[in-house]
């Protein structure tokens, strides 16, 4: 839950990286421009949420789902996002399903042969932990 207004901000380092990906190499992005884009991104999230929620309410549902967000994009005139979003969602769903199955396998193995953990699974866990650490580093550097 948001406790302070700062909780509505997005991490600057991540926003900067995303901006750089969209611009030609070597373009200088002023500090004010970064901050303006970051705040615009927070407003975008609120605006999209509000639009998506209207679609959920129309459907008499309490939980926002993927369809609501995609409808919101159309409503907001960001139709251009719909196709790439659908593609990413497919990949994301596959990824989540894979993770779930890996977890199930792990549980099974843990039951039968507790000591013999597969090396591959251990590596997977390490990757996830590192990702989290990386995220934290970035946030700290910027604050």
């Amino acid at each position, binding site marked *: *839950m*948001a*406790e302070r*207004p700062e*909780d*509505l901000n*997005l*991490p600057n380092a*991540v*926003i900067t990286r*995303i*901006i750089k990906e*969209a*611009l030609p190499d*070597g*373009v*200088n*992005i002023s500090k*004010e*421009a970064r*901050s*303006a*884009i970051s705040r*615009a*991104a*927070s*407003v*975008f*999230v*609120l*605006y*999209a*949420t*509000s639009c*998506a929620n209207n679609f959920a*309410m129309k459907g008499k549902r309490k*939980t*926002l*789902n*993927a369809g*609501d*967000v995609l409808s919101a*994009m159309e409503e*907001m*005139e*960001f139709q*251009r*996002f719909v196709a*790439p*979003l659908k593609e*990413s*969602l497919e*990949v*994301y*769903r596959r*990824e989540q399903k894979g993770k779930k199955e890996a977890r199930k396998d792990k549980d099974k193995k843990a039951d039968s042969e507790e000591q013999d953990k597969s090396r591959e699974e251990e*590596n997977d866990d*390490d*990757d996830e932990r*590192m990702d989290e650490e990386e995220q934290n580093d970035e946030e700290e550097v910027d604050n």
Partner: protein
Amino acid sequence: MAARLSGGENRLVSLPLSRIRVIMKSSPEVSSINQDALFLTAKATELFVQYLAAYSYKHGKGKEKNALTYSDLSHTAEECETFQFLAGIYSMMVKPVCNTQNEILLLLNYSPTGHQYSVYHWTGTCKLH
């Protein structure tokens, strides 16, 4: 090290989902969000950031100096219809204003110098818990 690099580069979404969820939940009418909707909102926000940056650079004056400036962005918010929701007339810097119960009463736009305020058109209140 290699694992760390590949993990960072190939991640499907780089914005933290936990933070996106906090922002979404700050909207009082929203009760729950499923995982797909959360992922899509985060991804859409990334696309939005790229589109806003690329559009502003392409149509802005900073391009002559190989730079993306604040005025390029406020120009976009004022001139481009798609980005109109950002146009707080003067600028797009948004600052939430809270009452004593810690509810956001409104979001204010303020100039880079912080002196000129104008009310942002998004009037929903969001509770800070």
